[in-house]
């Protein structure tokens, strides 16, 4: 082990002269080679999936696996590929799992199919703490403040008014034997804007930064000129091997982006890496053990409708989202991939695509009129022809929309559909939002509608945002479900699988776990006229000045007789008369 480590590091130094990271690694590892260092491993991949409407979906995943133990108070001080800022956050706040995502845009399931990793618009943060934490709320508040500094986002607006503690959704995605929901916290900020200032610190967490490997494609001017952009960080403990007696920490950084066909101005169904990202690839990240690009060619393996150049004969099949898909693979660690020009610019051309009809799909909207009452409608579509499956709906509504739970109705195909589990926690003004969780069985080929009426509250005038006429956001509903899969899923979690198919753990073969987010709602609250305090002060002061002032003057003013000042001639005459000693005129 020692020798192998040293040799590999030396090669590393030759390849990347300019990257400071590599140099530091060389020095440290060579010196203490007798003690086994916890091994860490970095993999990167990019999946490109052309969509039915002509848009193209690119999903980056960067995974760092580190065989160390943050739990049980172990002090970790030597960081190599795992970013130190996140490692310190995990150990200081006793975090078991952390999932944070920043999304701009809304994922259109009916046009684009299912994403590999779903995320709601705005910012979403959910954290599982370890059992050793005594004050979960205090730790949560500190954690959100620290994360707002790391990701340059206003996550410090997460407080008790938008945090909920789900009782059945958001089970841990990592390993764990105990799931006490007291240690779970979930919050969303639907108003959060995502821009380059969030991408910059995100890129700095990668081992190669944005200088080598797939991350060179991440240029903000192209990424934000898209229909959908989502970047996320997921930290969780995973099994090290098939026996699962020891754990290792997994950090996944994912970036999903959907480019619009019509934005660059050209209407042809032709995409290339340069057209999407304004960059081409020249090398893999030297610190990565695997660096691959997958292109989804399932609908046309013969290459008639579909053309990918430069051609590759590497094919791979993977079970993802309940379906067996075929992918062309480009391995960036092989020098041959880059060809003679030493750069890789993939060109993808296709004529038409089959529409992927998603099995589960959801919508949400506000009905009603006026600024007093309204109704929230959530529609869930089950498009499977003969199978029904359960879904868990999580709704978190802010306190200023007062829900009337006695008006809650769940109907499928016109008939009442009683949920088998309901958990409702009412809101408390200015302290807690509403939390509604329901387990509903969706009948096959149907639409299930959940409606609840609400009333809008009047806020205190200091609680309004500087732009209150924009409206107030209600976070997306989360629908978690076990959807029946078309092919048998692979439950063996330790086989070498591409990253995009191994995120959600798979326990049974006939169905797979999926999460769907609805649209966030924008409601107008009755807004006061903010110029009124100024108007009132002016009016009152005028009335007081004119009314009381006049009265006061009339009562207290005394009149004195005063001689008018004489003209110039008279004044000179008076002076002469004074000099003569004669009384003046």
């Amino acid at each position: 082990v020692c020798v192998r480590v040293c040799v590999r590091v030396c090669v590393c130094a030759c390849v990347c002269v300019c990257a400071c990271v590599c140099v530091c690694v060389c020095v440290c590892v060579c010196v203490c080679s007798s003690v086994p260092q916890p091994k860490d491993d970095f993999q990167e991949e990019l999946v490109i999936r052309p969509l039915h409407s002509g848009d193209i979906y690119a999903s980056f995943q960067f995974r760092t696996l580190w065989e160390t133990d943050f739990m049980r108070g172990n002090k970790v001080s030597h960081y190599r590929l795992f970013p130190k800022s996140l490692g310190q956050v995990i150990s200081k706040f006793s975090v078991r799992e952390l999932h944070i995502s920043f999304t701009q845009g809304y994922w259109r399931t009916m046009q684009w199919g299912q994403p590999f990793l779903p995320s709601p618009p705005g910012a979403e943060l959910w954290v599982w703490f370890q059992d050793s934490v005594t004050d979960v709320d205090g730790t949560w508040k500190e954690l959100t403040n620290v994360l707002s500094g790391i990701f340059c986002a206003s996550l410090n607006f997460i407080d008790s008014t938008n945090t909920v503690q789900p009782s059945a959704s958001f089970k841990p995605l990592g390993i764990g034997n105990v799931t006490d929901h007291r240690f779970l916290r979930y919050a969303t900020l639907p108003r959060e804007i995502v821009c380059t200032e969030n991408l910059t610190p995100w890129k700095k967490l990668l081992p190669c930064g944005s200088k080598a490997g797939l991350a060179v494609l991440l240029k903000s001017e192209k990424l934000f000129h898209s229909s959908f952009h989502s970047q996320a960080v997921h930290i969780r403990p995973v099994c090290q091997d098939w026996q699962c007696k020891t754990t290792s920490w997994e950090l996944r950084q994912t970036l999903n982006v959907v480019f619009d066909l019509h934005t660059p101005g050209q209407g042809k169904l032709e995409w290339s890496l340069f057209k999407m990202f304004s960059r081409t690839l020249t090398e893999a990240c030297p610190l990565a053990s695997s660096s691959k690009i997958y292109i989804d060619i399932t609908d046309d393996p013969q290459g008639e409708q579909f053309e990918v150049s430069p051609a590759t004969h590497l094919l791979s099949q993977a079970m993802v989202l309940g379906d067996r898909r075929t992918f062309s693979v480009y391995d960036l660690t092989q020098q041959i991939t880059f060809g003679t020009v030493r750069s890789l610019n993939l060109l993808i051309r296709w004529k038409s695509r089959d529409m992927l009809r998603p099995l589960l799909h959801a919508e949400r909207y506000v009905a009603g009129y006026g600024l007093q009452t309204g109704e929230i409608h959530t529609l869930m579509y089950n498009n499977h022809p003969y199978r029904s499956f359960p879904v868990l709906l999580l709704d978190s509504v802010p306190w200023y929309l007062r829900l009337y739970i006695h008006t809650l109705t769940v109907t499928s195909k016109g008939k009442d559909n009683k949920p088998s589990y309901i958990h409702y926690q009412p809101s408390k003004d200015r302290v807690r939002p509403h939390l509604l969780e329901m387990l509903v069985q969706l009948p096959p080929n149907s639409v299930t509608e959940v409606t609840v009426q609400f009333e809008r509250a009047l806020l205190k005038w200091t609680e309004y945002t500087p732009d209150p006429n924009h409206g107030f956001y209600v976070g997306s509903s989360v629908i978690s479900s076990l959807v029946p899969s078309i092919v048998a899923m692979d439950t063996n979690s330790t086989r070498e699988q591409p990253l995009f198919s191994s995120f959600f753990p798979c326990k049974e073969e006939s169905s797979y776990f999926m999460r769907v987010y609805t649209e966030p709602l924008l409601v107008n609250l009755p807004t006061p006229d903010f110029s009124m305090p100024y108007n009132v002060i002016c009016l009152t002061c005028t009335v007081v000045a004119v009314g009381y002032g006049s009265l006061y003057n009339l009562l207290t003013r005394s009149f004195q007789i005063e001689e008018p000042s004489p003209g110039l001639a008279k004044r000179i005459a008076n002076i002469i008369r004074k000099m003569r000693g004669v009384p003046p005129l």
Partner: protein
Amino acid sequence: MKILTLLSLLATHLSASSVNIEENAGQFFSSGHTNNWAVLVCTSRFWFNYRHVANTLSVYRSVKRLGIPDSHIVLMLADDMACNHRNPKPATVFSHKNMELNVYGDDVEVDYRGYEVTVENFLRVLTGRLPPSTPRSKRLLSDDRSNILIYLTGHGGNGFLKFQDSEEISNVELADAFEQMWQKRRYNELLFIIDTCQGASMYERFYSPNLMALASSQVGEDSLSHQPDLAIGVHLMDRYTFYLLEFLEDIHPSSKANMNDLFKVCPKSQCVSTPGHRTDLFLRDPGSALITDFFGSVRKVEITMETINLTEPIQQVEQNFVNEERQKETYSYVDQLPVSEIIHQKPKQKDWHPPDGFILGLWTLILLVFFKTYGMKHLKHIF
């Protein structure tokens, strides 16, 4: 005779150049600061105030270019223009017509954004009185050897600056904040630049030492914007900051330009308003203060030839990863949607609350009726 004059000329030239070198060396150690900080604030919200964000980002760009790192810059932008849905070119903020200069760039870190830019947060950043869990990037961790640059832009009036269309900061509050900073020794020298209408009114009330202030217009004058861009549809920058950016683009880290050159930026012919400045509280002569004293982070480097022996590397303590206290339990992944478990989930134990008023009243009524019926002599059996 000619040789003598030549020799004398040569001698005077040599002495002049040696004096020059001495002057340079003297200037090397003249300013008393060891680190630089910058607080750049844009206080306006909404798309039509694009130019204020562009102003702040231009100063940010110059300050970063001249050496101040992101960790020493507190950037506050009240609204997001770059990724605004009205921006025809997302992730860009331009300062020149025809989209020549993208001041947003690819490597920007905004510390306070959106609704966080309030008067309270601004004053807390200046005085350092922030809640304990505030991250380092949001703090102004300056000491008594720091030179701080403060740049404010937005809409203002005579004696106030408007924050986000909902609140104002007055010149008295600002002067008091600077006095707090002085008393807590949070700055060595402070340069205050403001680009708003009637900006000179904001520095009228300063009374702490070592402050220098610049404003884009006098009391009673409006600061005007520079040029609109027809593709973006709004004015891109204000005049004063536009010419300030042009001036700063010529400054490089080893430049010797001083504050007197900064006072000459944007005369009335270019700016339409009259820029003002105030130096009576500044203890040094403004001509001896370099631009890079505030806008850059010029490090004073000393080269040494002596060798230092590195100590032995720390030997890591042997950790047995395999045995010892490691539990032999097998871990497994959790079922994501355990339907049967959820349906049979017991309701959560509610936290105990003291009995409500109604329950207390009911019990009082019951006890009253009891004692009325059975008499008070049973009371001692209860208590």
